[in-house]
């Protein structure tokens, strides 16, 4: 189950980065506009943190690198 989750989040992250660089010019142009367009980098950064953050957690978990359960 965990490995399915890992691959699912990995796929979403790959799509997010794929889109970011496929539309690189547009992304840069929107960022440069400023004003209320600041919402764009903030929203994108939030989306990346949710999906990529979960993915990296699952990644280390899959490698067996987990927090110590008790002291």
């Amino acid at each position, binding site marked *: 189950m965990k490995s399915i989750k890992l691959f699912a989040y990995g796929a979403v992250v790959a799509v997010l980065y794929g889109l970011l660089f496929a539309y690189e010019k547009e992304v840069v142009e929107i960022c*440069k506009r400023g004003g209320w367009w600041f919402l764009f980098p903030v929203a*994108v950064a*939030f989306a990346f943190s949710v999906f990529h953050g979960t993915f990296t957690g699952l*990644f280390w978990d899959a490698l067996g690198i987990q927090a110590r359960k008790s002291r």
Partner: protein
Amino acid sequence: MDASALNFIDLSAGNVAFLLFVGFVGGMVSGFIGSGGAFVLTPAMMSMGVPGIVAVASNICHKFPKALVGALKRHKFGHVDLKVGLVLGVSAEFGMIYGAGVQQRIKASLGDAGSNLYVSFAFVVVLAIVGTWVMIDAWSLHRRGDTGDDEEVTRLARWVQQVKWLGPRFYSTGAKAHIPWLVTLPIGFATGMLAATIAVGGFVGVPSMHYVLGLPSMMASATELVIAFVMGLGGTIMYGWSGYVDLRLAMIILAGSLFGIQLGAIGTTYVRPYMVKVVMGTIMMLVLFSRGFIIPVYLSQLGWIAPISESTTTVLKAVSFWIMVAALVGGAAIVLGALISGMRRHALEGLAA
């Protein structure tokens, strides 16, 4: 400066790989000590040809999602005092705005060299005071053979928690005591001002939460991530409004740093609390020397001392940069070493049980 006039650089595969690596190493240090990974990123981006203000803006934009992930992770381990983090975070926003204003005024009156001198001077003064304090504390714990599991609250923190005339207070779960609002404001303000000046507010925030407010060092380093999130979000809005954020750069660094920050956060569960002080103190001392080497260059550029030859300037700049890199890589190596040996010990304990 109009953002549309700025060049957002073309990214090569080498640039991307370099940013991923620096992001990873910086993230690992941040996950462990709460901050400290960001100071190499701005100069690293500038060395690739990114304009200074875009480098600062993109660095801040990667900082808040990274801090959010790190804070959530360490919240799971019970390390975060959310109330203290949010209170300090809000006052840090004001410090950041004030700090950015001071930077702009210095730049307007003394130019780039004056601005660089101010930043380096702030590094040296803050790190000399706080870094020495942290190192002495870590060293005395080591000499006493004290692992810091049961950290003593400093006399100053005890006084802050007990004194009645400092006005209204709130309860801190980390300190397990009531803390006066009045004391939190200057700490948050100084953290924000330092973040706007040297990109690492945690060099003041973490030691202040531990030595002045009485939070255990492990909780202070985790709570700093909440402050970094609040400051990073505010900073991203500020720079994003002016159109300076290069989202591509920010997300590449984030890709590396999210791997690193999770590893750093996991590392804290395997080490004794005094290790946070050791890593923080070591990084602080190395960065102190790094900035110390560069100060004569800026003094010479301002004409405040005798001119320094170009070759000497090149050497001093290289020495300064590589000591800074050593600070980050050295810090990450200690974290990684502590994580590996901690996991091994834990596995052996499991086998023996």
